[in-house]
């Protein structure tokens, strides 16, 4: 069952270079993005955890006291520990060494790092089973998905879990032929479990894949069958790592695990606009993850991925099509297909809680990109471009040409990543016509800071709508807004009130009309002509002498 190429030092140089360039790009563009709602919660949690880690280093006995653990870990108990620990360590490094130019970057850096590592991993896995150019294409195609680029900046769990699920799948794939990878698989799965609950679906994917593999081997009468020891590693090391890294679970363990699982199985439903309808309770249309993928990923990358699946269809055939003595493989493409479809189907299921955002199925996209790499090579090979024109450059030019739409759109999407839609949707205005979700999390306030500073040269207050007080405090800590422009608790007390445009936020618009007696916003922040935030000015501000 040899169906892989050994990776060389050159491969790792290429992979690492891709990752480093990406992290550099993320670091360079991060100041344009205000923190999102969820980031502000994780920052708060990370600061609590950093305090606990400091105590653990200086006074371990106190730190391990159940009350101390509860005090540090109770906040945001619904998410496991791994990335929050990384954010906390990074924050401690910032506090003691001042490593980062801005506080927000200290929290975001671990997430960025996982994005860079994911590019390396996509390349490495791709280069193990196909030509280097296909692997590079896959890695860059993933990097230049606008929504991936946005989420890669954040101190959140979505890109990290995409990395750790891909890493777990890779370790499983390696472990099928190399026992040394079995403990690595358990560890990778443990980190995935300790990052986000998306990891729960991995054993199911692997068991289905393994069942097909076993059926192949039985059908082909292979004497030495692949052992199932990998599963034991996952089921023992994984949960152990999950609990060991999450002090919240060290006491009242079963109740707290139960609460964690229940929280996500019975998750509250977010309101999410899709094709003109704001869904607030299940079922969300089955098509949501597929249409959103069509509208937010480059069409040519999608088409190449479909071509990749088509050209590898022999790898996807049923086991009963094999004959005794036929060679068997690791069914890499079947594994990829499982990892691609599972996150999409999990959201598409009518019983799933309403989440909506593409971030919830980002874990599918590394495999989409890998299939696109397959497709690129297959198309170029069958077109016979190089020999046909007597040069190698046509194949390379073709690859670059296919990456350009994603790259250009990614550059254009920043810093409005969640508002961005590809030309397939008619761009941003086309998506507005179609009634697609405009944004969430309130991070677009970061694009208003200059205007607010101009309006409030002597300070004042802003009612922040969907932006959290924590996210605003981070803008202040980063120096993006001065401390004398504070977050107001009430519209009527504020100098300005923001309204982030989402369909179901209409009531907030009308609240501002009543509060200020006018329907006229003082300023409308737009992206490609589509309103993102309306800013209303409090007429009382003039009476207070705050206006200039």
């Amino acid at each position, binding site marked *: 069952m040899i169906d892989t190429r050994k990776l060389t030092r050159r491969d790792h140089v290429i992979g690492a270079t891709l990752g480093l360039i990406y992290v550099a790009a993320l670091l360079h563009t991060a100041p344009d993005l205000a923190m999102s709602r969820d980031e502000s919660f994780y920052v708060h949690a990370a600061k609590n955890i950093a305090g606990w880690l400091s105590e653990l280093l200086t006074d371990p006995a106190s730190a391990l006291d159940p009350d101390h653990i509860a005090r540090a870990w109770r906040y945001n108990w619904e998410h496991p520990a791994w990335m929050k620990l990384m954010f906390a360590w990074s924050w401690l490094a910032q506090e003691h060494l001042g490593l980062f130019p801005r506080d927000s970057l200290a929290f975001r850096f671990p997430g960025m790092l996982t994005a860079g590592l994911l590019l390396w991993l996509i390349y490495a896995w791709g280069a193990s089973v196909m030509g280097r150019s296909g692997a590079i294409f896959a890695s860059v195609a993933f990097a230049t998905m606008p929504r991936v680029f946005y989420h890669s900046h954040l101190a959140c769990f979505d890109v990290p879990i995409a990395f750790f699920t891909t890493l777990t799948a890779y370790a499983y794939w390696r472990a099928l032929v190399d026992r040394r990878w079995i403990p690595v698989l358990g560890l990778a799965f443990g980190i995935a479990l300790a990052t986000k609950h998306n990891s729960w679906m991995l054993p199911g994917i692997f068991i289905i894949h393994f069942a097909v593999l076993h059926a192949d081997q039985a059908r082909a009468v292979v004497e030495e069958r692949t052992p199932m020891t990998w599963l034991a590693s996952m089921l023992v090391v994984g949960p152990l790592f999950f609990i060991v890294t999450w002090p919240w679970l060290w006491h009242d363990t079963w109740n707290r695990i139960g609460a964690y699982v229940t929280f996500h199985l019975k998750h509250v439903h977010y309101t999410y606009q899709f094709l003109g309808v704001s869904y607030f309770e299940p079922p969300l249309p089955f098509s949501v993850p597929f249409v959103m993928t069509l509208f937010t990923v480059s069409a040519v990358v999608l088409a190449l991925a479909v071509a990749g699946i088509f050209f590898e269809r022999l790898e996807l055939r049923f086991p009963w099509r094999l004959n005794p003595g036929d060679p068997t493989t690791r069914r890499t493409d079947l594994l990829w297909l499982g990892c691609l479809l599972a996150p999409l189907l999990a959201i598409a299921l009518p019983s799933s809680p309403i989440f909506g955002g593409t971030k919830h199925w980002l874990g599918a996209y590394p495999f989409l990109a890998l299939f696109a790499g397959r497709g690129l090579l297959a198309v170029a090979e069958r077109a016979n471009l190089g020999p046909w024109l007597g040069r190698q450059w046509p194949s390379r030019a073709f690859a670059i040409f296919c990456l350009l739409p994603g790259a250009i759109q990614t550059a254009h999407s920043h810093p409005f990543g969640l508002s961005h839609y590809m030309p397939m949707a008619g*761009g941003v205005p086309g998506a507005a016509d179609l009634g697609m979700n405009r944004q969430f999390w309130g991070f677009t306030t970061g694009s208003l800071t200059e205007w607010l500073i101009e309006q409030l040269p002597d300070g004042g207050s802003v009612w922040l709508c969907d932006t959290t007080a924590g996210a605003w405090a981070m803008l202040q800590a980063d120096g993006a807004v001065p401390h004398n422009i504070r977050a107001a608790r009430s519209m009527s007390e504020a100098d300005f009130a923001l309204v982030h445009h989402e369909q179901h936020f209409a009531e907030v618009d009308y609240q501002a*009309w009543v509060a200020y007696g006018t329907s006229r916003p003082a300023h409308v922040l737009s992206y490609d002509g589509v309103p993102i935030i309306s800013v209303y000015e409090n007429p009382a501000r003039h009476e207070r002498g705050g206006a200039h």
Partner: protein
Amino acid sequence: MAEAARKLSLASWAWVLFAALAAFELLADPVIRAAIPREEAWRQASAFVRERFEPNDRIVAAPAWVDPIVRGELGDLTELRIAALPDRAGVGRVWELGIRGATTFDAAPALERNFAGVRVRMWPVESPKIIYDFVTRIREAEVEIDTDAGPLACAWTRGRAAPGGLERGPMMPAERFVCDRARPWLWVGPTILADLELQPRRCIWQHPAGPDAVRTTFIDVPLGERLVVRGGIDYQVARRRYHAPVTLRVWIDDEIAAELVHHDGDGWSGLDIDTSAHRGSDASVRFETTTSDPYARLFCFAASTQTEAPRD
């Protein structure tokens, strides 16, 4: 050799298809962006409307998602009553500022001009004339709530407005009738409701207290041909469609004139009460809300006495 050439040709076409898809994405992007009207176009179109604007004109946006931009340019011209129209009365003309070929009316406009992608159109409309708008005159009303000890008057108060925010319902204004400080939602006053279609509706908030009535009485109300009443429940609540119905009873001079039973899911709805027999006279008009269970009954109504607009 010929077979090989034929295969090469087919394969090359497949390659060209993918290249064409990439080219489509690359070319569509600047085309999409070039079609976005510039700020200058919005300003010119707005200046054109501003010059010709008359009181009672209504300004709408097409498609609806450009509404914030249109209000940003011309929102100061429009009263909240017209921006958050409860019914079709009191509107003289409709101005539409539209882009991308979108429209709100199918009829041919009386006037049309284009400003670099922003299309201005105007339609004169025939709508009833408002004689008395209860929402505007709410401060003149008397409000009371039934209690075990008898009716309790609610005082017009200047207090703290609601902070605002998602799922907080219509804004509680600073000035309002306050009925029970222990039940902060039990106030009566003007606000704007997001109806089931998320449309703004200027209205009187009158959250029912339960089976005990909340009453708002207006005296010396001039009557016309109709008393038009519309009501609804806040979008965030009404969309769930599982709370108790709200009953709104309308009394004219101590006689019940109509009863509206509003269920979640009815949307912004109501009734037209024929008052032609009392046309030209004054009367006291009372609005009374009750419900079997007051939980989350974020009810708001608008009413006006109306007469047909005189024809030119």
